[in-house]
């Protein structure tokens, strides 16, 4: 066995010599994009419409995929108008699917480049880019006796992943879900069937249809009197989650509430912000008119530099989080946690708090 492995590695090294300076994978990727374990990709096996604005994508992840936990999300990369953009989506399928497929459900957000692309333009057979699953929004190993899920809009997606994976291990489940209309409820028929079968108690709130508006903690307290006795998972807009966290903290049971935020609160300013250099640990306040390269150097960060005018690309560093602005043409670049977007520090200024790997 060891001999075969050594021979295989040796043969591979010869193939690498044949293809240098590119790697054999660069050729193989053309015919078998899923075999490359270094660059994780997924093939779109099916596109299923859910509501008018959302679809479920059935994906076959390539080699290098790691089995997810219910409730986790995955970063998906797609080329939108030529530019590779990444967003996170909750996995809605159970991890034990025998065919190894996963599903994500995408809701087209107005003005959302990635979600619109995935909902409108992705077809069966296309290749998407993928990251390994991650996320701390999880069920406990010992399932809760009484569970409450509070979701709004596409906040249902991680919860759907949990229900599909572990509902058969739970006895008392309440789901309070808020959506604009009856039709806009993602997984509406599946949830209603579960409710009809008596496996969950489903409380739907349609904000467009009633005048009651957005879901408030007080409303939930009325609908679910024993809410503080329940292990609770909530996912939805940041305002809703903020309200819930306050309510649960006021009730003295903050530890029973777990929340998942899709959109980190990204602050973008007209100019300036705190720049954090993650490797050196240096933190600098900037005013938005000075290139990050200058700010970093002034603060004593060792940085590579070259032309200092944006043409040589020697100083390029990854933006890991936050917003920066190109000082030449004003282009804004925004990175969410998990992103890795190379920027040119010599012609880029902070446009809000940001983290640079340098």
């Amino acid at each position, binding site marked *: 066995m060891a001999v075969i492995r050594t021979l295989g590695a040796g043969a591979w090294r010869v193939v690498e010599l*044949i293809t240098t300076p590119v790697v054999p994978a660069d050729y193989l990727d053309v015919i078998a994009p899923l075999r490359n374990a270094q660059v994780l990709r997924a093939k779109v096996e099916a596109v299923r419409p859910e509501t008018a604005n959302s679809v479920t994508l059935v994906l076959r992840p390539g080699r290098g995929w790691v089995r997810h936990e219910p409730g986790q999300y995955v970063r998906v990369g797609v080329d939108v108008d030529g530019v590779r953009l990444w967003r996170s989506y909750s996995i809605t399928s159970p991890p034990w699917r025998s065919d190894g497929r996963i599903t994500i459900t995408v809701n087209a957000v107005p003005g959302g480049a990635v979600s619109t692309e995935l909902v409108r333009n992705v077809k069966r057979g296309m290749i998407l880019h993928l990251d390994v699953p991650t996320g701390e929004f999880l069920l406990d190993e010992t399932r809760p006796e009484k569970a409450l899920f509070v979701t709004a809009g596409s906040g249902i997606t991680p919860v759907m992943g949990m229900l599909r994976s572990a509902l058969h291990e739970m006895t008392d489940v309440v789901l309070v879900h808020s959506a604009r209309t009856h039709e806009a409820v993602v997984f509406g028929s599946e949830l209603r069937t579960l409710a009809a079968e008596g496996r969950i108690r489903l409380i739907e709130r349609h904000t467009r249809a009633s005048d009651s508006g957005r879901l408030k903690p007080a409303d939930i307290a009325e609908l679910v009197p024993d809410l503080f006795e329940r292990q609770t998972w909530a996912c939805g807009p940041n305002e809703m989650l903020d309200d819930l966290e306050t309510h649960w903290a006021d009730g003295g049971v903050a530890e029973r509430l777990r929340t998942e935020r899709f959109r980190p609160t990204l602050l973008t300013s007209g100019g300036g912000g705190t720049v954090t250099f993650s490797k050196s640990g240096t933190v600098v306040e900037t005013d938005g008119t000075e290139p990050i390269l200058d700010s970093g150097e002034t603060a004593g960060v060792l940085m590579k530099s*070259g032309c200092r005018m944006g043409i040589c690309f020697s100083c390029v560093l990854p933006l890991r989080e936050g917003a920066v602005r190109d000082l030449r043409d004003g282009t804004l670049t925004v990175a969410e946690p998990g992103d890795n977007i190379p920027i040119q520090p010599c012609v880029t200024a902070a446009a809000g708090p940001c983290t640079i790997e340098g």
Partner: protein
Amino acid sequence: MTTIQRKKTSPIAHLTPEDIEQIGIELDAIRDEVMASRGAKDAAYIRRVIAWQRGLELSSRGILLFSLFPPAWLVGTAGLSIAKILENMEIGHNIMHGQWDFLRDPKIHSTKWEWDNASPSDQWKHSHNELHHTYTNVIGRDNDLGYGIMRVDEDQKWIPLYLGQPLWNFVNACFFEYGIAAYDLELGKNLATKKRRQDPGFKARLKQTRRKIGKQVLKDYIVHPALSGPSFLHTIAANAVANLVRNLWTHSVIMCGHFPNGVETFEKTSIEGETRGEWYLRQMLGSANISGSKAMHLMTGNLSHQIEHHLFPDMPSNRYHQVAPKIKDLFQRYGLTYTTGPLPKQVASAWWKVIRLSFPNRGEAAIRRPIEKKAPATATRWRRAEAPATETVAP
């Protein structure tokens, strides 16, 4: 040529500082328009070129497995030569310039690309992107002027060694990739003293280059020939010819960029505190184009649009033809010469200069005029002038 600052009549004497900043503003506007319109079509273009190049290289090498048969040798060698030229010019050079960084595809990114050339991409990016593109045609700053082994400007001091430069230039053309590697290592300077020879940074770069050359040589002269079995020697010859063709071609194209007649050079002191407009103007005057067909543009990696490339080194190469008419018009409106010509003419012009300057200056060129001292300025090249051009001084 003599540096623009020492010329009897300067071709930019008619431009006021306001004019120069206005040129900068117009060029920035041209740049912004194209950069904002980059998209899926451009992405498809570079991926198509890469796919074609790899297909061509793979099939040419496949054919060369049977290079014992003369037709296979001819077809395979021709294909491999073209593949190597495409890889170096339209693909490697341009990707390493960051032209395709906007795709955010790590497979086509300036920080990740390695090219089919003796010089490691890191070192090439430093000497080319950083030194040559920032200090274009500045005597004493831009080593591309003669690559440190030749005299290509009247204002470079003549020494008897230069008598042999037509020969050095030919040898350099044949082994251009190694010339570039030596140049990127600044061998002349770094081998001169013991201290420099033992500098750990230099030693590390030397090792990196040795490894790169080792891999390249192993591939072209051992692994592929060995795969072709009885065609071993024929494949060695084929690969050597393909490398030679690529070297001669790239050398010719690159000579056309900055050596032909009409290209201006600049004094070291003239770029102190240079504004963005002044930098642009230097690029306009310091570069020359090659006229020709679409195929010519592709095979030169669009360095046939050298002027456009030097103005916007990070603009995707497939867009240069689109901005060229606007740039030409700008030259005309500001009374500047847009230097261009067909490849044979430009190559001849560059070679003539190499031959002529192997001898000391004579006649008009021998007169060295003093240069005007410019008041030290503190502008930065990245800072744009604002329209109307009144305020250009950086804090």
